[in-house]
């Protein structure tokens, strides 16, 4: 579904991605783990065209999307729940969700809203509350729900566990699995919380300093001593 080949990106003179190869197949949950500053978020943003790749290629469902402007990429069936959630603070939950569907076919709106509110009953309770007054966990649910409103085939999640209590992280990850299994949405998950991410994912990649250093099935990476010592000890 998503093929990344030799992808490079830079911020000025600083190379953030140094040739990334990565695949996400339809129906999978794939996770990318790594330390702070490894380039995980940059990779996710580069997939969306911002910053633009300085080398390499990204193909989505066989189509070359490396040079497309961001808004066109986001209309192809890819949706992103951005890092730090970025819900619209002054708008209500319902308005946030409506905006998620802004490029989707309006005919699906009612059904999609039902679907998202069933996935996140909390959002149904808070539908008229402003995004900025929600708790962190609720904002994360809203960000994911908003992304789902465009009926994506590929969902990109950037650190959904950031700043959340352990119990909430579990809940969010359970919902991500539900989205993947029941709705057939492919998920590419960028996480620092390696333990939860690798348990959830079918496959995982480990990123260090802008390069992929390890890859394999989630359970295999979980058992890998290198991964254990770098990302899981003390967790």
């Amino acid at each position, binding site marked *: 579904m998503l093929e990344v080949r030799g992808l490079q990106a830079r911020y000025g003179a600083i190379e953030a991605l140094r040739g990334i190869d990565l695949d996400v197949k339809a129906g999978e949950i794939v996770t990318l783990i790594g330390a702070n500053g490894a380039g995980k978020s940059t990779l996710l943003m580069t997939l969306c065209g911002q910053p633009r790749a300085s080398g390499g290629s990204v193909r989505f469902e066989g189509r070359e999307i490396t040079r497309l402007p*961001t808004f066109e990429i986001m209309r192809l069936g890819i949706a992103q729940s951005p890092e730090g959630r970025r819900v619209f603070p002054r708008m209500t939950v319902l308005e946030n969700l409506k905006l998620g569907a*802004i490029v989707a076919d309006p005919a699906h709106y009612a059904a999609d809203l039902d679907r998202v509110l069933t996935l996140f009953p909390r959002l149904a309770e808070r539908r008229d509350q402003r995004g900025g007054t929600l708790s962190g966990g609720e904002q994360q649910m809203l960000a994911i729900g908003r992304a789902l409103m465009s009926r994506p085939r590929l969902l990109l999640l950037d650190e959904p566990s950031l700043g959340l209590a352990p119990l909430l992280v579990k809940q969010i990850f359970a919902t991500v699995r539900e989205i993947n299994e029941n709705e057939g949405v492919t998920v590419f998950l960028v996480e620092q919380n390696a333990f939860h991410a690798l348990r959830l994912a079918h496959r995982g990649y480990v990123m260090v300093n802008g390069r992929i250093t390890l890859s394999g099935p989630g359970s295999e990476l979980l058992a890998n001593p290198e991964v254990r010592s770098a990302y899981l000890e003390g967790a």
Partner: protein
Amino acid sequence: MSPLHAVRDAAIAAFVALAVALPIVGVRTVDTGAVLGVDFRLDWVAAIVATVFLGRLCVLLWMGRRERAPRQAGMLETTALGWLALIGRFLAYGIMGFALILPMMSFADRYVVDTATQVLIYVMLGWGLNVVVGLAGLLDLGYVAFYAVGAYSYALLAQNFGLNFWQCLPLAGLFAAFFGILLGFPVLRLRGDYLAIVTLGFGEMIRIILNNWASFTGGPNGLTSIPRPSFFGLEFSRSAPEGEQTFHQFFGLEYSTLHRLVFMYYLILILAFLTSWAVGRMRKLPVGRAWEALREDEIACQSLGINRTMTKLTAFAIGASFGGFAGSFFATRQGFISPESFTFIESATILAIVVLGGMGSQVGVVLAATVLVLLPEVFRDLAHYRMMVFGLAMVLIMIWRPKGFIGARVPSIRLADFRRPAA
């Protein structure tokens, strides 16, 4: 803020007042016949300093009291929003009804109708700018440029091609929208302060061009004898040209100059209603939703597939076109326009209306435009103190309502739109 801090702060304010008042108010030259004498008015200075000290102290203590009682947010908000929307709607209908019957009231003489027309022009400009500043969150300090483009479009089209008001109105809107896009392109990547500076420059550029391109725009002399609009072909004059009728002849009325004023009033009222309706509709369309989303978070917008470039350009173009409509109305009402009417202070006034009303609120703009136009009128008797009262009123409003008259944003989706998910 503790009382001690408040006293210290007030003392600083009083000192500044002293420094300003001593040379300006405290010393006065008097003509004693032969030589020019100097008169000291230290009692005045003392009064000013005391007023500033006490005023500042009251404001600080009052604000401190409010800070200690934070408003309850969250769960309560849902019901509060419902009420707010209800009150807003009630208020809106009340104002609309009043505006409709105003010229029929017994007190509606020339002065009242004329002032009400003035208020409506600013309401319309406020609503237009609200699209750019209130909804899309793009701080535009040069909005008067589009007002000017609209006014000059009408005047020039009417004089050079003999088009009438109704033919010119859409053209003026189009020209203004075109200038909006022209401004929009170079500022696509700018935000906040930087955007404000460029738009400020743009407004000045338009005014300076109008001032200097004398062969086309008449330069500082402006354009005169701009045709008045007619009522379905009926002129508002004492006597009609050969073979035509005037408004008062057709309806068998006694000729009165008030007829035209009332007609103008209803004309701008209709234009304002149309603006309000159009903006209200657009808020619920994808383009309007995208404007508001852009104001809230540009990055999130892009992640949802919103085209940032198009969204900004449409905001500039549509906001500008309303300015253009208002401009052509202004031209036909005055019958005379010159660059003098389109200075920065106009942009500032319109922006003040939007901010004072509460960013994005339509009813707020009406309230603020009314206050800003009427205040100087009401205090006309105070002669040269009236601008002081005006300034004082603005300061008080911003202390009392820091987010504007109507600071809370009314959601664009109601409860009724929501269907319960299948449990």
